[in-house]
């Protein structure tokens, strides 16, 4: 292990554990453990949501997808960023105003149905697992590149998976939402700083975005493929104009038109159904704060993804010319093109910042994976600890018992994700997929966008939504999405396969339609009118804002002393 690797790992550990100790929860209540007391301000919450959302898929995966597929890879970034527009327009403020602990709890109470709550828990757990595995994979890849050694007889990859997952599981189990919020906020700022450093350094060295795209588009796009026991560059097929070569700067290297739209719809609708992101909205003090938080998030992730796309382009342009000067690149590349596209950013960091640059980018990648893992584990804890244990298994549970069940479920979910990440070694996937990490995350978005988003949106905006309708939507959306993306693995490349691989374009409309049809044939909860006043009224917001203003005034009065007016 190099000294850089030691310093990097120590820095990550100090940051994560330091923030956790400083922000450890003072109380042992479920509102504190799962919702950080519902007092997370706009700036902190927006940073934390970014930390939660910007996973290894965003940091390593988007740059990797652009590196491999050029403009087509950027659709991942567009889809990820687009997701917060529906969240802002349709979900954030009403969801927060209604309160509760999780998406499953929201649906269960709004539709007055335990069955809806339990089915939602099932879908939420599927989404969490699909999202957790690629994050753990990201941790393993980064460790492999940074340290290159395993411990206790394990491979470097397995060691990275186990250590990164274990550290964050312990942090979440002990710190709850309060510790996780501050960890995610600090981690986002570090992640953003690392990407900004890379962008500034690369640009200062003479990288010109437009010229690079122009230059890369002069020749057909080719990527390494492992065939007949050897690596060789293979030209990508143009999905839009099959008789022309695919190029970096034009669409077609990865998707046809249908595939592009299907991917963006899948990622765009999926965000509103991601449990770890939506649960963060319950921590905002008011609905208006939740809405404002989303505006901040839209601005910050827009800048982040813009930079990630630019760095994917920079890696493609710069690495071939750097092989001669940096002999260590030879074993990572084939004719100047990286074998594992997720290495794009770490390699760029090492080219420009030597070992320290590699350490910084590797630390950012680890942090990206860990902050998302934290959110996912907490969402898992909320569903098991609150939605299942407290609501169904032991309704008389004390606060202390419920929190301990949440902690235990955190550790179990982490163990399952790490085990599956080790079983799915990335080398087995890389030749077949442009970016393993981003592709696996697409599955989570597909299930969330096909099953949860339609039901959540209808529950918020359509008074007639019923429990039976919601069940029809949840079951049809998840079954169709899973069946389609699993079928896609066995299909020949083409427009139909692209549609099946990103199935929300088909599954979500069916889930919407079935929810509406079944709801029209059944009776809505009689409490719908009072729910409307809570969800779409602002009395609670005004009350909270008035209380906050009074508290501030009182604090100021005490600070200014007894003579102050």
């Amino acid at each position, binding site marked *: 292990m190099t000294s850089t690797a030691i310093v990097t790992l120590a820095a990550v550990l100090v940051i994560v554990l330091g923030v956790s100790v400083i922000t450890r929860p003072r109380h042992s209540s479920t509102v504190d453990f799962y919702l950080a007391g519902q007092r997370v301000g706009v700036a902190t919450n927006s940073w934390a949501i970014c930390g939660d959302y910007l996973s290894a898929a965003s940091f390593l995966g988007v740059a990797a997808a652009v590196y491999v597929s050029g403009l087509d890879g950027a659709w991942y970034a567009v889809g990820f960023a687009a997701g917060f527009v529906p969240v802002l327009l349709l979900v954030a403020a009403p969801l927060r105003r209604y309160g*509760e602990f999780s998406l499953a709890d929201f649906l269960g109470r709004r539709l007055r149905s335990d069955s809806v709550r339990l089915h939602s828990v099932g879908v939420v757990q599927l989404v969490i697992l699909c999202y957790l595995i690629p994050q753990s994979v990201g941790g393993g890849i980064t460790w492999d590149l940074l340290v290159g050694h395993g411990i206790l007889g394990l491979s470097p990859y397995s060691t990275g998976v186990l250590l990164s997952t274990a550290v964050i599981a312990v942090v979440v189990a002990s710190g709850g939402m309060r510790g996780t919020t501050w960890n995610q906020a600090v981690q986002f700022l570090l992640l953003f700083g690392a990407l900004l450093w890379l962008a500034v350094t690369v640009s200062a060295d003479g990288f010109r975005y437009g*010229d690079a795209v122009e230059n890369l588009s002069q020749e057909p796009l080719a990527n390494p493929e492992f065939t007949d026991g050897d690596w060789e560059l293979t030209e990508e097929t143009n999905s839009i104009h099959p008789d022309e070569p695919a190029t970096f700067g*034009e669409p077609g290297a990865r998707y046809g038109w249908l595939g592009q739209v299907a991917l963006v719809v899948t990622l765009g609708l999926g965000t509103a159904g991601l449990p770890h992101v939506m649960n963060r909205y319950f921590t905002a003090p008011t609905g208006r704060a939740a809405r404002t938080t989303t505006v901040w998030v839209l601005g910050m992730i827009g800048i982040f993804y813009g930079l990630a796309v630019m760095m994917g382009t920079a890696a493609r342009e710069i690495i071939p010319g750097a092989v001669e000067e940096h002999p260590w690149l030879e074993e990572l590349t084939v004719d100047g093109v990286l074998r594992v596209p997720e290495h794009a950013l770490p390699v760029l960091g090492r080219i420009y910042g030597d070992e320290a640059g590699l350490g910084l980018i590797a630390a950012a990648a680890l942090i990206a994976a860990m902050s998302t893992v934290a959110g996912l584990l907490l969402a898992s804890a909320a569903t098991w600890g609150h939605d299942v244990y407290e609501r169904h298994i032991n309704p008389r549970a004390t606060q202390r018992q419920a929190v301990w069940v949440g902690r235990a479920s955190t550790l179990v979910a982490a163990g399952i994700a790490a085990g599956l990440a080790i079983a799915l070694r990335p080398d087995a996937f890389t030749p077949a997929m442009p970016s393993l990490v981003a592709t696996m995350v697409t599955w989570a978005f597909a299930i969330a966008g096909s099953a949860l988003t339609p039901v959540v949106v209808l529950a918020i905006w359509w008074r007639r939504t019923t429990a039976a309708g919601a069940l029809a939507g949840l079951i049809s959306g998840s079954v169709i999405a899973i069946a389609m993306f699993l079928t896609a693995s066995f299909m020949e490349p083409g427009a139909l396969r692209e549609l099946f691989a990103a199935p929300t374009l088909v599954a979500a409309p069916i889930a919407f339609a079935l929810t509406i049809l079944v709801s029209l044939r059944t009776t809505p909860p009689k409490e719908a009118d009072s729910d409307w006043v809570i969800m779409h009224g602002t009395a609670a917001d005004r009350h909270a804002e008035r209380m906050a203003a009074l508290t501030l005034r009182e604090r100021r009065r005490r600070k200014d002393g007894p003579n102050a007016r």
Partner: protein
Amino acid sequence: MSLPTPAPDDGEVRDTPAEVDAAFRTLRRISVTYFLVFLAVVAAFPVLSLTLNWWLDSRLLGNLSPGFLTVGVGLYAIFAIIGIAAATLSSSVEQRMLGTQDERQP
């Protein structure tokens, strides 16, 4: 444990169902309108690529084509603008249509 439903009882006025319903309808119109704008913006890319050669062949800012510029930078800016506009309008509608009785209180 269930979170308590907020019930301001310290002299503040609750929203009436009629007020909320009116505000809800206005907010729904705003959300649907902006959502359609959002869909149109995202769907415009493949349509422009199919219909205008200029979209991918010409060069604009920083020697990037309009298409690449849109995917690399432009769409994120448009999303942020949609977000700011919709949030500002929604909050202002809520402020105008709800809680008006609070203001009349001493």
